């Protein structure tokens, strides 16, 4: 599949590989039988950026990564990595990948697993020792380097997968839910690793549904749902609105329904969050609540979080 395609496909329309985006897709689609996993994905990820790919479970995030890495065949559309068509073997030398389903040879030690990936990458043998030592140190597995992977916890195996993805200073790294098995300390470490990659100019494609994580490290995001990108842009583009949290009692569902003109409401009982409300409308909102018989205890305008925006986008999509 990929082996054949690499011989025939053309370079990306952006031109020379060195000046081309890290990732470019044009109408990339994937169907499994009648199920549409990805529908017309068109996006560009510039080099050196941390790109967040968000979406609920089953939205098509992992499918997108697998398509880009040549593990799945697109039903239609085209895509390029580092200026070369997907499936190009030589491009894979410059790419790191931590799969969502991370699993490594349990009968090898951590160091041996990384040596295997150095060999497959392939990196010059003289560099293996330094590469492996640095990668193990970066993910905090230096002390367990000689231990068999079968004795590792899930979190440690995920760290090992991250170490494998970092080998050889790749130009583009795919991280598919990289903190799913990690504790808060591990998540913090991963964010530091991502920032480190960004600082040296590596593009990072971060697949995640952990919105706070994405918000903290990504330069640009795309939100995908039901196989389609429903919003994309820089973090500033997406989070330009203001959310207003109101602590209120005395409102029934009927009264809350009458507040719909103030935008999407995240209803958590006595706490209502209006996910996209301009600050100048706050007095008008408070007056309306009081008129409906509500008793207001707290009004807290704040910048919209990625979670606010994400929920707003998905609700709009449902409608």
């Amino acid at each position, binding site marked *: *599949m*990929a*082996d054949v395609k690499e011989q025939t496909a053309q370079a990306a329309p952006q031109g020379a590989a060195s000046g081309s985006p890290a990732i470019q897709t044009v109408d990339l689609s994937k169907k499994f039988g009648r199920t549409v996993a990805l529908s017309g994905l068109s996006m560009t990820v510039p080099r050196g950026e941390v790109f967040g790919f968000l979406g609920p479970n089953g939205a098509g995030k992992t499918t997108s990564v*697998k398509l880009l*890495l*040549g*593990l*799945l*065949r697109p039903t239609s559309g085209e895509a390029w990595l580092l200026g070369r068509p997907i499936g190009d*073997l*030589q491009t*894979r*030398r410059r*790419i790191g*990948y*931590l*799969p969502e*389903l*991370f*699993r*490594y*040879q349990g*009968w*090898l030690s951590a160091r041996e697993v990384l040596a*295997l*990936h150095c*060999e*497959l*990458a*392939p990196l010059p043998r003289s560099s293996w020792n330094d590469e492996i030592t640095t990668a193990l140190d970066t993910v905090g597995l230096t002390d367990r380097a000689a231990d068999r992977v079968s004795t590792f916890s899930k979190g440690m195996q995920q760290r090992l*997968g991250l170490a*494998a*993805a970092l080998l050889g200073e790749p130009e583009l790294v*795919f991280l598919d839910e990289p903190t799913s098995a990690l504790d808060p300390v591990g998540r913090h470490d991963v964010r530091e690793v991502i920032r480190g990659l960004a600082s040296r100019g590596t593009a990072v494609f971060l697949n995640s549904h952990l919105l706070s994580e994405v918000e903290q490290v990504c330069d640009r995001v795309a939100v995908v749902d039901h196989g389609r990108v429903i919003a994309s842009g820089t973090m500033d583009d997406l989070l330009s609105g203001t959310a207003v949290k109101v602590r209120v009692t005395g409102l029934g569902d009927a009264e809350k329904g009458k507040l719909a003109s103030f935008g999407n409401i995240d209803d958590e009982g006595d706490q209502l969050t209006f996910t996209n409300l301009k600050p100048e409308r706050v007095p008008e909102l408070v007056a309306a609540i009081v008129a409906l018989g509500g008793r207001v205890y707290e009004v807290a305008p704040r910048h919209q979080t990625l979670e606010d925006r994400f929920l707003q986008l998905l609700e709009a999509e449902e409608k």
Partner: protein
Amino acid sequence: MPPILVIARLTVQEASRRRLLLALLILTLIVVGFSAWGFNKITTVTNSNGVTLPAAQVALITSQLLIGVTFMYSGVLALSAAVVAGPLISSEVESGLLLSMLARPVRRSEVVIGKWLGLGVLIAIYAAGSAFLELAAVDWATGYLPPHPVQLVIYVGLEGLALLSLGLLLSTRLSGITGGVIALVAWLMGWIGGVVGDIGTGLQNQAVANVGVFSHLLLPTDGLWRGAMYAMEPDAFLASLRAAGTIARANPFVAVDPPPTSFLAWVVVWFAIMLTLSILSFRTREI
């Protein structure tokens, strides 16, 4: 090291680290020890006059018993090849083990050939090693050696390799258990098909004999087993079989003739077909 050899080395390394080789070595030594004791008993058997059997008769009995023991070895080899090859690719796809490896500059064909090569080396080592130990034990116990020991090893090894190739092909699409069971059933059906074909030959019924021909074409394990048997039969025994006419061919534990050259040529083609289909199947598999 090219990816094919890396994958092959990894396959051998896994069998070694998971103690598969150690288990086979211990079991083989136990079987060799018991069979040496059993074969030695043949030389102490006396006839009705209280005299030990003449050397020619010891050789004849030993050759027949050796065929039985070798059938057990080939069974173990076929079983092991099917059980190990069945999940060779499918289990690594299901577990996600191959995801990070296939994201490297590695062709899927290299994964398939590398795994085939690695397991093929293990089969060759087991076939040659166990044959050497068993034949050395029989030689020590009875002074008998089959006429063509090298051919015996080659035929038994190829039988294991055939099961490996079938298991590997199934492993590119089916789960490990399903692929392993299908390969095993195919092996048994192939043997039974060969027996039915022999009966057809013995009874001079072409339609029944053709069952054997078709089964040898579909899965050449039984045809290769017949080559192994032929390599173990002394000339005097072969002469008596030929003298008995076609009816002697109805016995599933004798081979009157060596495998024809056309069959051996087909075996080469069959291996090529299996590997090609495995590569094509895995190339188009979505992971």
